[in-house]
């Protein structure tokens, strides 16, 4: 065992959460702990190639109630790199189609002595509901249009790797902000780490409400482009839109696609990121997606490191001490 691995064996004191549900409620110390752990894991595993069996004897369950290839594979591989057993569960193959509630499904899986549940669900808040009904740790792998904490973390890890620090950078999230869980997790993580965050997209998909959190709201990509250090190009989530919020894909591409002409007006060292899956020709053209500024595939590798870190950190906490919620209920009018 190398010195660094031995050091990794001791669980960081800054991490006391049984669950990783969102980035909004994480403290700066918690955020840096998980990012630093991910970096250390990446180094200790030759870039996430080799095993680091810190979770031998543990079992993680992937509960994906919504389709996913990348995230599910990434979590599964991360668990295996750590020496854990992985159970895969898909909604279509499940008792959900027989009318069972997802809480009952989850409790049944937990009864098979699972240590961590990694859940993706179409409904915001579903991981909170789950965490109130199971004793095992819960990791949110994307809850509808709310948050996708490990995606936010891997995006930020990628920026840190290429730029050293996030503080002071101008990071634009471009596209369908309204329906993007990636956008929300990025916003909270980046704000805490001191970045200047811009959300940019059609006015039907970008709320002015973000301004009150210190986020810049822009509708024109061309006007903000010269100031950006990082562009994170979000996919248009057609499946989550009830009425189409812009007239045509062609018009969207005209206004927001990152292409060679726009690259020519961008900073020379701009980073092009995308959480994927990407729609080539819609939010990004192939030459840019595959070009020298693109770090899209680095993001995928870092996803493994971040998920290894998340699994290990939550496994090191025995009990759920803090309430599993984004905040104390404050809605009662004070009298």
């Amino acid at each position, binding site marked *: 065992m190398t010195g660094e691995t031995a050091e990794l064996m001791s669980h960081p004191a800054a991490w006391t959460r049984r669950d990783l549900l969102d980035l909004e409620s994480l403290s700066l110390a918690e955020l840096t702990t998980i990012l630093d752990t991910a970096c250390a894991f990446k180094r200790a595993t030759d870039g996430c190639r080799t095993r680091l069996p810190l979770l031998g004897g543990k079992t993680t369950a992937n509960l994906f109630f919504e389709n996913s290839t990348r995230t599910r594979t990434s979590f599964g591989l991360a668990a295996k790199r750590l020496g854990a057993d992985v159970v895969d569960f898909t909604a279509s193959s499940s008792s959900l189609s027989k009318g069972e509630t997802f809480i009952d499904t989850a409790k049944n899986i937990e009864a098979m002595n699972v240590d961590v549940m990694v859940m993706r669900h179409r409904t915001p808040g579903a991981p909170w509901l789950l965490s109130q009904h199971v004793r095992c740790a819960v990791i949110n792998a994307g809850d509808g249009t709310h948050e996708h904490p490990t995606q936010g973390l891997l995006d930020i890890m990628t920026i840190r790797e290429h730029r050293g620090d996030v503080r002071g950078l101008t990071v634009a999230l471009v596209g369908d902000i309204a329906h993007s869980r990636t956008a929300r997790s990025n916003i909270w993580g980046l704000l805490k780490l001191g970045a200047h965050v811009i959300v940019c997209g059609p006015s039907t998909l970008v709320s002015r409400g973000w301004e009150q959190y210190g986020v810049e709201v822009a509708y024109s990509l061309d006007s903000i482009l010269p100031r950006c250090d990082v562009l994170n190009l979000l996919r248009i989530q057609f499946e989550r839109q009830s009425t189409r919020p812009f007239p045509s894909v062609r018009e969207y591409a005209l206004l927001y696609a990152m292409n060679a002409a726009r690259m020519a007006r961008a900073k020379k060292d701009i980073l092009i990121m995308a959480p994927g899956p990407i729609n080539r020709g819609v939010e990004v053209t192939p030459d840019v997606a595959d070009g020298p500024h693109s770090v899209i595939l680095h993001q995928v590798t870092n996803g493994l490191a971040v998920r290894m870190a998340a699994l290990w950190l939550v496994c090191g906490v025995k009990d759920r001490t803090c309430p599993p919620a984004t905040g104390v*209920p*404050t809605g009662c009018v004070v009298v």
Partner: protein
Amino acid sequence: MPALLIKNGRLIDPSQQLDRVANLLIEGHRIAGVDVPDQSADEVLDAAGQIVAPGLVDIHTELREPGLEEDETIESGTAAALAGGYTSVACLPNTDPPIDTQPSVEFVRQKAARARHCHVFVLGCVSKNREGRELAEIGSLVESGAVGFTDADRPIHNPELLRRALEYCLMFDVPILDHPEVLELSHNGIMHEGVTSMVLGLPGMPADAEDVMTARDLRLAEYTGSRLHLMNISTAGSVELIRRYKARGIRITAEVGPAHFCLTDERLRTFDAHCKVNPPLRSQHHVDACLAGLADDTIDVIASCHAPRASEKKLQELDLAPFGMVNLETTLGLVVTHLIRPGRLTWPQALAKLTVNPARVLNLDKGTLQVGAAADVTIIDPELRWTVRADQFKSRSRNTPFEGTELVGRAVRVLVDGQTRFQLA
């Protein structure tokens, strides 16, 4: 006739502007005297330190029977009403089948009579099968006892249908009760649209979805000259519109429920399905407007908006969980705690919105302690501190966001037609 003397209580009856420490005499099932001197009676009740009020009247209760007995029955719902201090409830027709025919009205009335808890008045459907297409047989329903018409939680979407309904009701002098919501603006919504919904990624129901429909309803009420009651108002826009139309003398009334004067959309931050109601919990700005509307009497009625839902329905993902919260057993405590004690409403003002005002909306001879009226009386301990425990509810459902909340003020004894039907243990 057996006589009951309730003495030394603070007698508050807004129907006759009464508010003083006085004795109340009941003979048989009627009020026999208000402000009577001490005298002998078959039974004497000392209500010193307590408030003696007309039995509370709720005009927005879902009893769920027939068809949805997993949520509530007429028996359990009326028991809950009594425990909350209500002696009369008007029940919504969102049952299965909906209450749109004479036999269905009679079924509810018979079941209620058999339960022998509180009086039950029936609200019939505006449209057949609550489909919003053709008028239900309003005249026949009136004949069998329906006192008002509503499609419950379904807004009357077609403006022509609402206009006809309002006009048709003129000849029976019964009101239409509408839930104002433009569904195209709010569909798939889970919570109030605003900064909180933006952060949580939950689909929003904008305030405008209510405001636009409130405006339409008020125009049609003015045009037809009919009686319109707006249910479950929740937005600053609605309150302002109602205030303006009332100033012009239009015959409209409006209600709010507890959800909209004591909770905000911030409560959804815990993703608690008990906080999923329609109209949704609004932001503080709207709550403040509802409070102002209550204080200046723009809002006539405080309704329970009791919407019981079985736990297996609520214990689901937020998009699948139905709207609604139970409130029959908490409304009075919430009114005392959030409206009276902070000085937003006086006791007579609050009790008017819980007794005579709702009775007047439906032309009921309830909510009064006038001599000769049925002796429906609620005795309230205004200082009693208690903690909401859903497992002690008489209601069959437990869907309250107030579990564990400490409230002040509770009905300790409730009389219906002169008989004690509820007494706090």
